[in-house]
């Protein structure tokens, strides 16, 4: 074994044999001085950094100023706009939870999801829940979500300004189908079943959830022998009473239930909204006047005629005459005056009750057979205007993601440029 000392000696000998010719030190000092003088030139080589800083500033500015209406989370449009043609699911860019749309003017179901349209008329947001039921509040700020196909002990109420759902619990478990919001946006009426039936058909009770007190009160028991009809309900103008039908029932009997304070049901008989009425399939109350009732009746969801009744609360003045409808048309609500909003074929129209015909307000997108359960925020629509609007701007989350991705690309490009520049300098 060679000793450590011998190895050290060999190393020294070997290394000493390496010829080294030192340049004059003045040469290196001159290089140092020249490098110092090149300070400004080196500063000029900082252009990639300056470029990156400029890119960051540009992206940040663009993030805020991209064209299109503002879609910051929960931000509301100050005017209410409806598109002449609804974009439908094609306009959806993200979910309510990710980018709250703020106050919404409409809600509909398409492609297995409920979609809200913000009051700017261009911002569409999707709810993640599928196979449920949703109901938009009259002021457009809240959506109640339930799943009528299974029993549960809770109902979710989503605030569209925050995208957050508030959970309301009750007992015992029930299958819930939302029927109507009170005009003051405080209460929601549900059809309730102890055992869920297909599409909620058959006998069902009516319960009311008070969002302020969180009380969930059953105001009407399920009525037997009401066939497979669907229970319907509408709130009186004060929000303290619910008018409900019990499903398929001869004579189309309507009953009035006091919610605040609870009172026994007061039956209000409607003498047949249509001839041989068996089932009230759409029910609406004029929420501005306490006097006018809409009851549209026929079986199996087919409405052929809108009927107006005003005698149940002492109607004064003329009751509008019946209005013929086509199969599939639905009542969306009152326009705050002498008209109603109805789905009409592949769109929505405003009907005058004084015989002045109708105006088509918006059309569903072409090929939108799957668009169902269209709803309006009925407080907002009378104040809205119909526009030919372009698609909405990027949602806030996409803007952020795009900005971050772009910044990363810029940073990576700068790192590459700087490394290549250094390599070039290192190897002359």
């Amino acid at each position, binding site marked *: *074994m*060679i000793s*450590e000392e011998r*190895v*050290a000696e*060999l*190393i*020294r*000998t*070997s*290394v000493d*044999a*390496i*010829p*080294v010719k*030192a*340049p004059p*030190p003045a040469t*290196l*000092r001159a*290089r*140092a001085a020249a*490098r*110092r003088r090149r300070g400004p030139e080196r500063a000029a080589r900082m252009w990639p950094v300056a470029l990156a800083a400029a890119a960051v500033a540009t992206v940040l500015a663009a993030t805020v100023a991209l064209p299109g209406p503002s879609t910051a989370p929960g931000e509301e449009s100050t005017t209410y706009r409806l598109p002449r043609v609804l974009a439908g699911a094609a306009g959806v860019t993200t979910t309510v939870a990710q980018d709250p749309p703020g106050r919404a003017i409409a809600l509909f179901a398409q492609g297995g999801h409920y979609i809200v349209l913000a009051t700017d008329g261009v911002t569409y947001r999707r709810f993640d829940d599928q196979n449920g039921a949703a109901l938009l509040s009259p002021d457009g700020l809240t959506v109640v979500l339930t799943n009528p196909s299974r029993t549960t002990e809770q109902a979710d109420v989503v605030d569209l300004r925050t995208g957050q759902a508030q959970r309301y619990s009750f007992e015992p478990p029930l299958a819930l189908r939302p029927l109507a919001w009170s005009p003051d946006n405080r209460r929601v009426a549900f059809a309730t079943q102890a055992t869920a039936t297909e599409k909620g058909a058959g006998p069902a009770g009516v319960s009311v959830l008070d969002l302020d007190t969180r009380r969930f009160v059953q105001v009407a028991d399920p009525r037997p022998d009401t066939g497979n009809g669907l229970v319907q309900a509408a709130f009186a103008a004060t929000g303290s009473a619910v008018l409900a039908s019990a499903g398929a029932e001869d004579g189309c009997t309507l009953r009035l239930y006091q919610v605040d304070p609870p009172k026994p049901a007061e039956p209000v008989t409607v003498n047949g909204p249509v001839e041989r009425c068996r089932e009230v399939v759409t029910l609406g109350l004029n929420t501005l006047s306490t006097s006018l009732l809409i009851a549209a009746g026929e079986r199996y969801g087919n409405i052929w005629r809108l009927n107006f009744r005003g005698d149940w609360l002492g109607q004064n003045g003329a009751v509008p005459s019946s209005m013929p409808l086509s199969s599939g048309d639905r009542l969306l609500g009152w326009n705050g005056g002498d008209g109603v909003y109805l789905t009409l074929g592949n769109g929505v129209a405003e009907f005058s009750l004084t015989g002045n015909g109708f105006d088509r307000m918006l059309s569903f997108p072409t090929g939108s057979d799957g668009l169902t359960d269209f709803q309006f925020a009925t407080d907002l629509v009378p104040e809205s205007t119909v526009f030919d609007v372009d698609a909405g701007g990027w949602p806030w989350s996409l803007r952020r993601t795009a900005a971050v991705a772009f910044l990363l690309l810029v940073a990576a490009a700068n790192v590459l440029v700087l490394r290549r520049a250094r*390599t070039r300098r*290192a190897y002359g």
Partner: protein
Amino acid sequence: MARADAFDTVYAAQYASLVRLAYVTVGSMPAAEDVVQDVFVEWYRRIDQVEAPVAYLRKAVVSRCSSWVRRRILERRHASTLDQTPAVPPDPGIVAVRAAMARLAPRYRMALFLRYYLDLSVAEVAEALDCPLGTAKSLLHRGLAHLQAQLEDR
């Protein structure tokens, strides 16, 4: 002038050994000269701020050589070039030691050079290599064992 004098003094005393250190590490005389001259130039620019110039220069050379070796490894994946080596005296013993050193990883070569050529203590080797004392000991022990084995086989 005091700065220039101080520079010249240290330069005269350390330039050759630092170039050899760099050469042992990088295996290329032009690259070794470039590295060391660059280190001296940088040192001269901040000569007033450096309290222990020799240790500073040694550490800077080790650091730059390590970077150079890493870059070189990457380059060799794409191109094959021969190093320009200085004229080697035809001494078979020196040739054998160089061959044995060449088979060691650059970091072992640096450790052995610092310890046995510059006669630094193990702590000083660790400082120059910017590693813990234990790591320096390990580098020296393994490097020496490897070198001894190589020279035994000769």
